[in-house]
């Protein structure tokens, strides 16, 4: 091979590599990104059982049920609709009634949301950003209430 051919093959190799990496990245974004929903969105959005999503809202008052062992059931609500959620594990320290929460998992065939992670990640007002934005969009929560 001449020097020019060598250089071209190196560049071509690099481009193929970058192309593969780009392709992989976008494939992974399509496959692995999980969408965020509030309970009321679920009536319009079609979410298949087993599809991984994040469900956010407020923990509905009086719905926290501690069953056998480490399994906990509670409802997530956006005051329009609520969804039953079960979770096995330790709830975050900031988990409490009527506070914002984000759960990640998928719907079981019975329509109960099985969460494998519960986040109460928050700013200093105890409200996850996604949930706050969602509630604001639904007119349930105003900025002034947060002060």
């Amino acid at each position, binding site marked *: 091979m001449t020097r020019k051919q060598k250089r071209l093959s190196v560049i071509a190799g690099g481009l193929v590599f970058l192309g593969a990496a780009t392709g992989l990245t976008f494939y992974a974004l399509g496959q*692995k990104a999980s969408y965020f929903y509030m309970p009321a969105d679920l009536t319009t959005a079609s979410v298949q059982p087993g599809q991984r999503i994040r469900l956010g809202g407020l923990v509905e008052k009086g719905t926290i049920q501690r069953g056998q062992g480490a399994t906990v059931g509670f409802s997530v609500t956006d005051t329009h609709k609520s969804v039953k959620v079960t979770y096995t*594990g330790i709830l975050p320290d900031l988990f409490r009634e009527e506070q914002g929460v984000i759960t990640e998992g998928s719907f079981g065939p019975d329509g109960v949301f099985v969460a494998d992670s519960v986040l109460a*990640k928050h700013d200093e007002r105890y409200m996850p950003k996604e949930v706050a934005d969602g509630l604001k969009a639904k007119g349930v929560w105003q900025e002034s209430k947060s002060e």
Partner: protein
Amino acid sequence: MVETGHFALVLAFALSLVQTLVPLFGARLNNQRLMAVGGPVAVTGFALTALSFAALASAYASSDFSVASVWENSHSLQPLIYKITGTWGNHEGSMLLWVLILTFFGALVAAFGSNLPATLRANVLAVQGAIGAAFFLFILATSNPFIRLNPAPIEGRDLNPILQDLGLAIHPPFLYLGYVGFSICFSFSVAALIEGRIDASWARWVRPWTLVAWMFLTGGIAMGSYWAYYELGWGGFWFWDPVENASFMPWLAGTALLHSAIVMEKRSALKIWTLLLAILTFSLSLLGTFLVRSGVLTSVHAFATDPTRGVFILCILTLFIGGSLALFALRASRLTTGGLFHPISREGALVLNNLFLTTATATVLVGTLYPLAVEAFSADKISVGAPFFNLTFGPLMVPLLLVVPFGPLLAWKRGDVFAVAQRLMVAFAAALLATLVTALFIDGGSVFAALGVGLAVWLILGALTDLAVKSGFRTVATGIMVRRLLGLPRSVFGTAFAHLGLGLTTLGIVGTLCFGTEKILSMHAGETVELSGHTLRFVGLYPAQGPNYSEDRGRFELIGVSGSPVGEISSAKRFYPVRQMTTTESGIRTIGFSQLYISLGDEGKDGSVVVRLWWKPLVTLIWGGGLMMMAGAAMSLMDRRLRVGAPSRRRKQASVVPSATLP
């Protein structure tokens, strides 16, 4: 004292403007006297920033609640150490720490840069001054830590309990020393672009700064990871959280920079690429600062969300990244390209390293920013988490790790890959053996786990092979070998240590992810549970009182083979009344390199307690590997050739340098 600090900060801002303009024009007019202004101004600016920082720290230490930032983030009952570390445990204070470190690095250039060409030195200080000016203005305009309250409150609102930990003393300063340390590389790059030339002293200067910054960033990330691991009670060491990614991207790019700077220094090739990489690395540091400080992300790091701050940092970001890249586009073609090399050579290996590392940086960047972009352009909210990064980052890292042991053994210019493969035979055989043993004899692991162990062993032994080959193991008498080993340049040890660290971290990650076990159950006092061969007895819950919290401490006994307790582990639920916040203090016991990890959950009605237990094999190696990498960087820094201000002595050492290239 507080007003003194405030005044010093304003003065430091003014000086940073002087530092930007005067040396810049001096360099342009080639006026020695104007250029000479930069040094003293940079040192004075640092002194004033330090005074300002000390003033704030003393306000925190003495719980002066008339200062708004102290009132919001401190409490009189807090232990003194947390009062002091609380200085940077909030937005305003941490930005002040940021500029303190920035001016510190500027002062170092001023103090040790006497042997730099005058115009280069002046331009570097000017760029450093400009970054400083932007951030001083940001602090004074949007995040002033010295704002007073009138009347002064009697009691403060307490520091976020999660931050009341020794981790706060180490993690942010180290991380900032890393982030901001790359500003020097950035300033050198922009200065070189302004001058339109890169000379030998440029490369000699940039490499040690990259090493310093990289060393601290490695430490900062490792410490942050360990802190999150024990503090959050989730038992995870890395969450691919955007905030973590914000620190990981400069690390990846900085690692690439570290390697390309070697090529540039030794072979004066890849000049333009190294320069671009230096700009990109600091740009990613700025992006990290933006992501963490602007409040676009919700996390424990985003202390307060004030939109004006976000917009301000975004402006700084655009100005510096856009400006430097525009300058690069205009001037890069003026720079001369360096030596040629064969694809299979040390240079070639380092280019491959750069290709993989920058691509990996790009995937992390896409994964981190994609959700923000989707949210900005549509109503959808998405999250990109571990599954995405495992699918993209993983496949990029594995081939890179596979070729790591080849790199240091290849010769410069033109290498012989078969000769290197022969030298690595022992390491390869051992890695293969480790894979087989893991697959056949250790339960619970998959094929991937076995391959992972093999990969880690390959990396570790590959690093040791490098030292063995270079000291002439088995080819010369033992005495000569030892003498040769001790006589090797420190940078060779640096490489070996850092690659060894990489292997240890890999082993730790594989061990924890593939062989770890976990149990979640509710326990009554007196019950025992078994986990991966360890028996634990739950003794009970005991209430206790801390200085600014109350806690329920769950005590566990580790039962030995004989049936009697051999140790105690305790995990607690803490309640901080001021912030009405509960935190979990995990219970950890280190056994060898592995750890038993206990996290306490809620108390049930019948007096039982939910307990989550993990057995985490080899988990400490994850951070141990990080320490090893830091040791490698420190070793490399001690190399006589690289010692700051060494160029004059360099000629005497010239005989040592070629030995680094011995195959």
